[in-house]
């Protein structure tokens, strides 16, 4: 038995709503932002570094991102996470989070991208345990409605500015039935190895190919890399029931942490 709160997008009957059309369903995890802060990276290229960007103390490996304001790009996850030990990870370099902190570290020769030196960035940490084997309950209504502008809905103002309840802009709300939320169907990890041709397959069970995000984790699930929506290091082939990750290069050998959304890749509803 499941209890909770469920709210569909404006103009859609709750009984007709796909999970991806629910503004809120407390049974389903979502891309809620736990931490959002500015950090300035010191000069890191060519020097050994071990810099804590944020102590989150969440107790799980979170989905997170680092966005460069000047470069207008995300820091990409580094490869090399298939290695077992931290020492090898240090040589790979890059941005990671463990269960307690987000850290930028590396060997002098592993991080040579001077574009990130003295760079003001935004760090965002989501309330998503990306390496946890999680699967949401699934509701698949037969009808297919789309959002409509009606006089009925729910909205909750955000604390961060002085907007009032008549505002039409979604940025002024933390919940608004005129908006689509990013409900999560599945998170977890999968290993792409050479003997699988660099492919790694996950069952999602959504009935249609889904949208997704992915990054690298290490063999022992101690660290996880950032999620960079403008470039992730895997491609995917998807069916109605599975998604297969494969390398952007010829053969991927890595541990992949993924988020599979309840959002359908072939639909815009």
């Amino acid at each position, binding site marked *: 038995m499941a209890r909770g*709160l469920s709210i569909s*997008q*404006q103009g859609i009957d709750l009984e007709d709503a796909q999970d991806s059309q629910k503004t809120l369903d407390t049974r389903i*995890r*979502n*891309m*809620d*932002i*736990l931490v*959002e*802060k*500015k950090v300035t990276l010191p000069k890191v290229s060519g020097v050994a570094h071990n810099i804590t960007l944020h102590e989150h103390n969440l*107790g799980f490996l979170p989905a997170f991102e680092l*966005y460069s*304001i000047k470069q*207008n790009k995300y820091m990409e996850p580094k490869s090399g996470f298939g290695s077992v030990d931290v020492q090898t990870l240090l040589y790979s370099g890059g941005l990671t989070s463990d269960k307690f902190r987000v850290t930028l570290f590396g060997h002098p020769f592993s991080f040579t991208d001077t574009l990130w030196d003295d760079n003001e960035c*935004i760090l965002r940490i989501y*309330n*998503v*345990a990306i390496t*946890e084997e*999680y699967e949401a309950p699934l509701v698949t209504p037969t009808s297919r409605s789309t*959002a409509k502008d009606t006089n009925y809905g729910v909205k*909750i103002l*955000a*604390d*961060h*500015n002085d907007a009032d309840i008549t505002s039409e*802009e*979604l*940025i002024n*709300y*933390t*919940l*608004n039935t*005129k*908006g*689509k*939320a*990013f409900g999560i169907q599945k998170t977890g990890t999968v290993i792409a190895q050479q003997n699988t041709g660099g492919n790694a397959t996950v069952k999602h069970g959504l009935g249609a*190919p889904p*949208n*997704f*995000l992915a990054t690298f984790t290490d063999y022992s699930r101690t660290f996880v890399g950032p999620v*960079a*929506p*403008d*470039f*992730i290091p895997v*491609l*995917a*082939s*998807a069916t109605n029931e599975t998604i297969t990750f*494969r390398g*952007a*290069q010829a053969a991927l050998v890595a541990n992949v942490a993924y988020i599979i959304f309840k959002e359908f*890749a*072939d*639909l*815009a509803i």
Partner: protein
Amino acid sequence: MSSGIRSSERSVKSKSTPEDFDSRRSRLQVAMLKDPAHLNIFELSGITAIASTVGNGYYAQETLFSMKHGLGYRPKVFVYFYGLANNSYAVGTYFYGYGAADDYITYRVDDETLEILHIVDGYDFTEYTSLAPDGGKIRMKYMICSNPVNKLMVEM
């Protein structure tokens, strides 16, 4: 003082977990009733076999799609590409080729505009012709979030 709704499987005084909902937190959202639409899926056409040459400084670019998002700030965007030829999905960047030169489709967004670009970048020394077939097509889906990407929510 802040008020709102919080849902938790345990005491609301206990430490937050991924199961919890707290309406004081911002979340990723896409406005569903915008014009032009902030969520859309369609087939990109007009992709051509552009080339990086010594004449263009080893960098070639063509704009495949452009729209005004109407937000007045730079939003967080998700773009998914579906390769019709090889049944593959890519997030943010779809590669036709990479190596000494990179040949790819990607997006750029600023305070006013979302663009989809086809780029061949020879990195200052490589002449390279795109592997994209002339007249090529690719299906794409974009989601423009109401969340800013280059500013904090508290700065909005």
